[in-house]
């Protein structure tokens, strides 16, 4: 996946206004099968997936014993097991980690033979629908069906990482190029453009979605990262004991908007009353809003909406204000 095909701004705006096509084949996929599949997934992910019905997906995290986030992922419930979509750079680590707890449950890393192509944007559904063999209107957000798009067998998942409606299509590597070309051909007249890693990052930031490695790592708890909603402490899982004691963290991930033209970036210090109090996790310009935005770690007392902070940009404090996440919420219906 290139950083950009034409321009990050153009690609970003295409996704917000029409649709963008993403090659996410680098993402990792693990398949968990066997009679104890549910018990294994319950033991490794933080969220209670007992009620996750086949055909539905949920976002959650894998934690270590200390409650630090090993990875964030989507858990898809299948008729006979689970399908996990994980970050590319963590796929082997996740595979090893889950294997270690798997007993006789089958864990198969199918990431290297599975391609993933996403179509995201207000026109994404009609573009995919025009090629699909299923009625997709009834596929709710965070649900999926196995079907065909342009005659190519795909898992058709109404999920994404852009803040827009759309689909993520999983298929075999050997079919990916044909699927890509077909989507592009059918979508071009509607404004569909190939979009790269740069736009993926600016889009997910506006949507307040976390990026593993930037916004959290294995020393960050889901409470610090604002992901309490992905954690079910009433069940047992790896890290639960530590997390039960970590519900009042000393830092929180908060949204901040820049009040001048400065561009916040990963690692820049967050300043309050002249003192460093945290750091930028993710930051960039928001093409939709027209100013800089950041997700920052700050003490809980300084992370409520309206708090004035400064972000140190090349030695100077640029004014910023805490705002609610996400920065951008789509207005058109799901």
């Amino acid at each position: 996946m290139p950083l950009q095909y034409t321009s990050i701004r153009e690609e970003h705006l295409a996704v917000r206004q029409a649709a963008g096509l993403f090659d996410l084949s680098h993402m990792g996929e693990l398949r968990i099968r066997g009679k104890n599949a549910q018990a294994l997934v319950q033991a490794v992910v933080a969220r209670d997936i007992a009620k996750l019905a086949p055909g539905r997906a949920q976002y959650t995290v894998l934690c270590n014993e200390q409650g630090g986030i090993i990875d964030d992922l989507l858990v898809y419930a299948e008729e006979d097991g689970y399908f996990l979509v994980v970050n590319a750079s963590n796929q082997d680590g996740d595979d090893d980690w889950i294997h270690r707890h798997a007993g006789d449950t089958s864990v198969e890393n199918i990431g290297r033979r599975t391609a993933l192509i996403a179509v995201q944007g207000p026109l994404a559904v009609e573009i995919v629908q025009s090629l699909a063999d299923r009625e997709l209107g009834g596929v709710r957000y965070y649900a999926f069906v196995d079907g065909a798009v342009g005659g190519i067998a795909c898992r058709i998942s109404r999920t994404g990482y852009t803040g827009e409606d759309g689909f993520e299509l999983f298929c075999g590597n050997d079919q990916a190029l044909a699927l890509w070309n077909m989507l592009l051909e059918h979508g071009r007249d509607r404004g569909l453009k190939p979009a790269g890693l740069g736009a993926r990052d600016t889009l997910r930031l506006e949507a307040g979605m976390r990026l593993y490695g930037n916004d959290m790592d294995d020393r960050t708890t889901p409470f610090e990262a604002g992901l309490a909603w992905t954690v079910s402490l009433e069940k047992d899982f790896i890290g639960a004991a530590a997390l039960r004691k970590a519900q009042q963290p000393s830092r929180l991930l908060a949204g901040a908007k820049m009040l001048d033209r400065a561009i916040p970036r990963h690692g820049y210090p967050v300043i309050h009353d002249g003192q460093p109090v945290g750091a930028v996790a993710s930051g960039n310009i928001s093409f939709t809003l027209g100013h800089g935005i950041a997700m920052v770690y700050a003490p809980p007392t300084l992370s409520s909406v309206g708090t004035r902070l400064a972000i140190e940009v090349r030695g100077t404090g640029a004014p910023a204000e805490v705002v609610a996440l996400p920065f951008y919420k789509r207005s058109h219906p799901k």
Partner: protein
Amino acid sequence: MAAPLKFSKTHEWVREEGGGTVTVGISEYAQSQLGDVIYLELPSVGQKLESGARLGVIESVKAASDLYSPVAGEVVEVNQDLKEHPEYINDDPYGKGWVLKLKSVTAANSSLLDQAMYEDFVKGQA
């Protein structure tokens, strides 16, 4: 007819405007490498710059990078349009995307490259 452009190895361009004044900008290659420019931090009028001194910062979506003065001189004008339209750097780096003008430019900087030499230099970097 405008004077030919000369280039620094740090990818700025200079054009002599007569009377010891030059216009400075960034090259087509540099803008293509930076991608969408979103912000510039530039000096004020009256500031004196040494050749090779940091004159400001250019930020694209990808990263923040330093800009260097390709010659020594005093800032007489800064392109104010870039505040509202930093994308001019991408759209028209040798025209609307000019960055600033310097006066009292004394000696020509002998390390500057002409267009053909600069293009060879860029090919060597790729």
